[in-house]
């Protein structure tokens, strides 16, 4: 309770807010609403997926077996771990521990990059196996048109997810920079928290994508 806030407005306070608390509330609510729009953005794709999977269950099951489950599973583990390190970074921010914030953000950044590298490897193998929709698409044991729809959705959904990961990584760099400049304190660290919300959301999208795309009919 010995903060200097009572004397002059804190440096981080933007002109149109009354208090840092209001500024933090605004940032958090803004991010939550943004995530709702993201959920609907992916929601259109999930709808398309559900419609076509119910129309062509056999082709979807066969096509799904051509995805690389080992890489997909490894990436799932990597992303869940990155959510842990992100949560630890937010915790460090709440404690006001600058060094820990940066350390955990770096871990998160490395895990996110590892995810993208593995995804890149996976795409390369997919293309080599003629799974990229288009003139070279070929698959055994299923209607090629229907399986092609599966892989169109696979590439669009995982591709948009990867774009969100790239945006997340760029934001991580910005937050690391802000942390290194000493912008955050125990009293004010809203950007770290908001970053965390975004990161967890992108992870959750993957948590849905993984079973829907990789695990159909794998129980055999």
């Amino acid at each position, binding site marked *: 309770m010995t903060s200097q806030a009572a004397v002059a407005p804190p440096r981080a306070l933007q*002109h149109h807010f009354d208090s840092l608390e209001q500024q933090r509330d605004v940032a958090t609510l803004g991010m939550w609403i*943004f995530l*709702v729009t993201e959920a609907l*953005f992916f929601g*259109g794709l999930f709808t398309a997926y559900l419609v076509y999977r119910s*129309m062509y269950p056999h082709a979807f099951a066969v096509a799904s077996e051509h995805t690389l489950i080992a890489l997909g599973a490894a990436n799932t583990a990597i992303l869940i771990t990155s959510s842990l390190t992100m949560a630890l970074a937010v915790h460090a921010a709440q404690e006001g521990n600058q060094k820990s914030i940066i350390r955990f953000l770096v871990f998160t950044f490395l895990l996110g990059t590892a995810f993208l590298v593995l995804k890149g490897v996976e795409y390369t193998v997919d293309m080599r196996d003629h799974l990229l929709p288009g003139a070279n698409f070929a698959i055994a044991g299923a209607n090629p048109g229907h399986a092609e729809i599966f892989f*169109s959705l696979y590439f669009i959904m995982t591709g948009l997810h990867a774009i969100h990961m790239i945006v997340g990584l760029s934001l991580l760099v910005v937050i690391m920079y802000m942390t290194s400049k000493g912008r955050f304190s125990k009293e004010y660290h809203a950007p770290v928290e908001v970053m965390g919300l975004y990161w967890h959301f992108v992870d959750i999208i993957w948590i849905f994508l993984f079973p829907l795309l990789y695990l159909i009919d794998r129980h055999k």
Partner: protein
Amino acid sequence: MTTAVLPRENYLNTDYRLRSWLLTTDHKRICILYLLTITMFFAIGGAFATMIRLSLVNPAGTLVSDETYNKLFTMHGIIMVFFFLVPSIPATLGNFLIPMMIGAKDVAFPKLNLASWYIFVTGGCFTLWALISGGVDTGWTFYTPFSTLSSNTNVSLAAIGIFIAGFASILTGLNFMVTIHRMRAPGMTWFRMPLFLWSMYATSLIMVLGTPVLAITLLLVAAERVLHLGIFDPSRGGDPVLFQHLFWFYSHPAVYIMIVPGMGVTSELIAAFSRKRIFGYEFVAFASLAIAVLGFLVWGHHLFVAGLSIYSAMVFSLLSYLVAIPSAIKVFNWTATLYKGSVSYATPMLYAFGFIWMFTIGGLTGLFLAALGLDVHVHDTYFVIAHFHYIMVGGAIMGYLGGLHYWWPKMTGRLYPEGWAKLGALTIFLGFNLTFFPQFILGYMGMPRRYHVYPPEFQALNVLSSAGASVLGIGYLIPLVYLLWSLKYGPIAGDNPWGAKGLEWTTTSPPPTHNFAVTPIVTEPAYNYAGEQEESRVG
């Protein structure tokens, strides 16, 4: 009577350099940026409409080729819907008024607000590019598989333009929602807010929930064209009707993005010019939210002839009828407000009356279209065209112009010439009805939309409609001229020329950059016109 002078320092004269406009984060200046941009788009969309109406004077359709006609109605729809109507009231009046009405210095995210404008302009440039480099011929609805397989025009470019502009809409909605939630001045409770704010909140909700689905849908169309995917291609197992579902999941609620803000403006105008609190304030407020929510449950009524099962068609029909309830609540409550009010017929009030009249016609004919049997008869005819123009032009643009006149003195510090303004309002009202009422009859007689060659027996009504369109065109030019004139020669308005209630009238006209000298503290409900005597009694 005081001699009014313009305030020495206001948001317009703090800095005259171009830079200070292009990099502004002031919500009022951003309103002006949007105002200029959408006026330009309105002119472009209007030019296409002029060509359409000119062509339809002659049943042989000899003015333009078939291909050109297809492009004309497509570009008219795309420009007017996505680049004029959707941003119209929210991005201009909403931007200007939301912070002022709640007693805040700015919106919650001022930089994001400016970014939204740039995103909007970028999307607009893409679409204009698509237009200049050959146009689009799919209709504004981009129906598959025509848009993905057959059309040889700039579909991808236009879709990407709308995709980009959609994010401007999403971010504006997000900004407004957070602003209304978190930036209200002390004492400004939800139920003390002017009804315009409730309508903006409902509109923002639709923008935030609907636009992302349109974005992904148009992205799929563009991806399908560029990468030759088969998601909407029936010959490879794709389902073109899925596109219609996804498209209308946004585009039906989008109709309410256009009309609900007009309802908000009308509530303000009716209260101010009948000197009364809006009858049943809470009902009108919740009716806005109800329209926003119900709007998401009725998209299927666009698919009655697209192979929807009879049971889902019945459910969609029933749900569509439900929208009539909150709409009717609003209309009845506005008229009830007039009862024993001290009604004056200033120009904004004329627009409000025009809004109620045309929204009622547009709304009631909407019920015809929600009826399963009748819709099959009038589907894709001029009846549909007339219906949605009554909502989107008769309703939304009347609301927009009414609001623009009402808050013009606040935005510019000057009054418009009342006589010319009344003439303009009357011309628009007559021109509009002359243009679109004959189209109801044409549609009912069976004239399909999107055709420019038609049987000669439809010519009389088409000529009537085109004649109306020229009156309407002149009607729109009148305000353009006198509003520009008023910027220099209009009488100084003073802080509150209408004697209206609301925080925006307590500050100077034009307001200073941070809106209020001191943050206001709100102690009374909205539209407290009867409260003055009571207040003095309470002391």
